């Protein structure tokens, strides 16, 4: 079992709902300070978005953040350099598209991530069927490969995905890309489908923008992921202190 999963299972055992904010690396020069602030505010793990030119799974907010980060010259290497040696106090999970790792070289990428303290990776366009090679290099570097499930996922796929995902299972409870979901979603069904096969922690994401929604999602899940809503504040000039209080507002709601 990957370290990340050990950690997150232990966290679940404490009864605390995991809170996982998402940051786009390189979107502002002080992005690592935002990450640190989030941890101060109560984040249990952090997703580090590695910007890609063609973010097929992301809505406008994250697209915009990726473009800013790319314009600022952000690459896997700059991100890893900035992270190396800093201790942010929570597990870091890279989130990006497969081409970046493919182009960098899978083994080299996994090694570089691990060396800079990253312990997991979410690659939304890497399907289970195409993931063998990536998962095997991640095994060498103790990087957990986190898979998503969606409302459209079939029973047979729920089983395979729940069995394969590491660290946690990312449950997208609505059919939408990041930052675009509207309505209630189908958290119960999606989360229960995972649980039926596996006892891996299940985190709900996509479309959680308010503490209330987080609380709602936490009724079924072991953790919640907050992405676009947070990125949006940073795009609009939020300071690390703002980020801290943003995260804390979610933390408080979840802890109540």
């Amino acid at each position, binding site marked *: 079992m990957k370290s990340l999963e050990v950690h997150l299972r232990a966290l679940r055992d404490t009864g605390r709902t995991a809170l996982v904010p998402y940051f786009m690396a390189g979107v502002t020069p002080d992005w690592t300070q935002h990450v640190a602030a989030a941890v101060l505010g109560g984040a249990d793990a952090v997703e580090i978005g590695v910007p890609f030119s063609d973010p*097929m799974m992301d809505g406008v907010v994250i697209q915009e953040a990726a473009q800013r980060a790319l314009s600022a010259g952000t690459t896997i290497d700059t991100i890893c350099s900035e992270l190396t040696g800093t201790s942010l106090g929570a597990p870091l999970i890279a989130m990006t*598209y*497969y081409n970046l790792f493919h182009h960098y070289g899978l083994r080299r990428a996994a090694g570089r991530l691990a060396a800079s303290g990253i312990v997991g990776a979410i690659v939304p366009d890497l399907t289970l*069927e195409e993931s063998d090679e990536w998962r095997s290099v991640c095994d060498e570097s103790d990087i957990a490969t986190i898979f998503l499930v969606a409302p459209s996922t079939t029973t047979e796929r729920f089983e395979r995905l729940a069995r394969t995902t590491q660290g946690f299972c990312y449950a997208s409870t609505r059919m*939408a890309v990041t930052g675009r979901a509207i309505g209630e979603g189908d958290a119960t069904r999606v989360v229960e489908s995972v649980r039926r096969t596996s006892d891996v922690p299940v985190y709900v994401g996509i479309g959680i923008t308010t503490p209330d929604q987080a609380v709602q999602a936490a009724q079924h899940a072991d953790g919640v992921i907050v992405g676009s809503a947070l990125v949006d504040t940073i795009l609009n000039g939020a300071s690390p202190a703002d980020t801290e209080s943003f995260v804390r507002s979610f933390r408080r709601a979840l802890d109540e």
Partner: protein
Amino acid sequence: MSPHPNFMGAPSSTGHFGDFGGRFVPEALMPACLELEAAFIDAWADPVFVDEYRTVLQEFGGRPTPVTYLGRFSKKFGVEVFAKREDLAHTGSHKINNVVGQTLLTRRMGKSRVIAETGAGQHGVATATAAARLGLDCTVYMGELDTQRQALNVFRMELLGSTVVPVTSGSRTLKDAVNEAMREWVACVDDTHYCLGSVMGPHPFPWMVREFQSIIGHEAAQQLTQRGVGVPDMVVACVGGGSNAAGIFAGFANTTTRLVGVEAEGGAAVSHGSPGVLHGMKSMLIQSEHGQIEEAHSISAGLDYPGIGPEHAYLAAAGRAEYVGIGDEDVLVALQTLSELEGIIPALESAHAVAWIMQEAGRSIPRGSTVLLNMSGRGDKDVAQVRDILRGRQ
């Protein structure tokens, strides 16, 4: 039995052509891809479906398109050139073959709506056309920049009853339209089919679109045989995503004919690109040293794509087909030459293939060779642009 390996058959069960292809999509889309694959396999094995597809292409789409011997052009360049006239198909290019197939499949799957991406608007107009005929709802995603550059095609789609959505992300061109169509597909996959425009995207699209386009090559092979020309020495087609090339190659893949795909120099994914993953497939891509996808640049909007269909990447790697690049200047000259000599104004895309023949005749194309050229579309859509460029120089 053919002495050659069996090219252009079905891909592996995971949609791979050699190292290329596959499926790289959000999990939310996997069921739709699997459903589509099953539906396509089922339909394509059903004589009733195949017959309807052929009948619609014949009675509505204008098939078979003729093969025209380019007498004056051949004489001038010392090679015997025959053009497969997809420019005469309904909506003015080969795109209709694919959309007729996909819209019939949409109806068969019980879906009532299609979405599509488009660059210059050719595939968008074709999709809007086929959707109108079947009474399907249709929404077309088009880069905002392209909606401005190709405003008339936007109006055409609207006339045909489609909704055109300008895409404002990224470079606001074709590749962003694909991203956006994929995003939208996630949200409406239940009742909506994504009608992809070329031999790209996740499995089964590259295979399915090639199958729907292979009518070009099969017709051409038969026509050349009937005309006593037999198997040509060479088949030449332009390559954007690669659907017209795949369609015509399919008629000749298991002969010794030389297959040549002509990319735009500024979007030559095989010659200038490297392997990568985009839009659901692994293929050859134009990308930066960091793996960011770059914008393609070409005078022809239809070749303005930084990737290429995965089967082409495979045919190149396997040495079965060659891929070459042609620059904008040569394309303009070729368009003018063919117009004047043959009374056929080619699409700027197709003019790439013409230009390569002009360049290589008597060189890598031995004098007297028989060449089958895929005239993938008509130039009417490009005439204003060509005029402005040529006038700008006077």
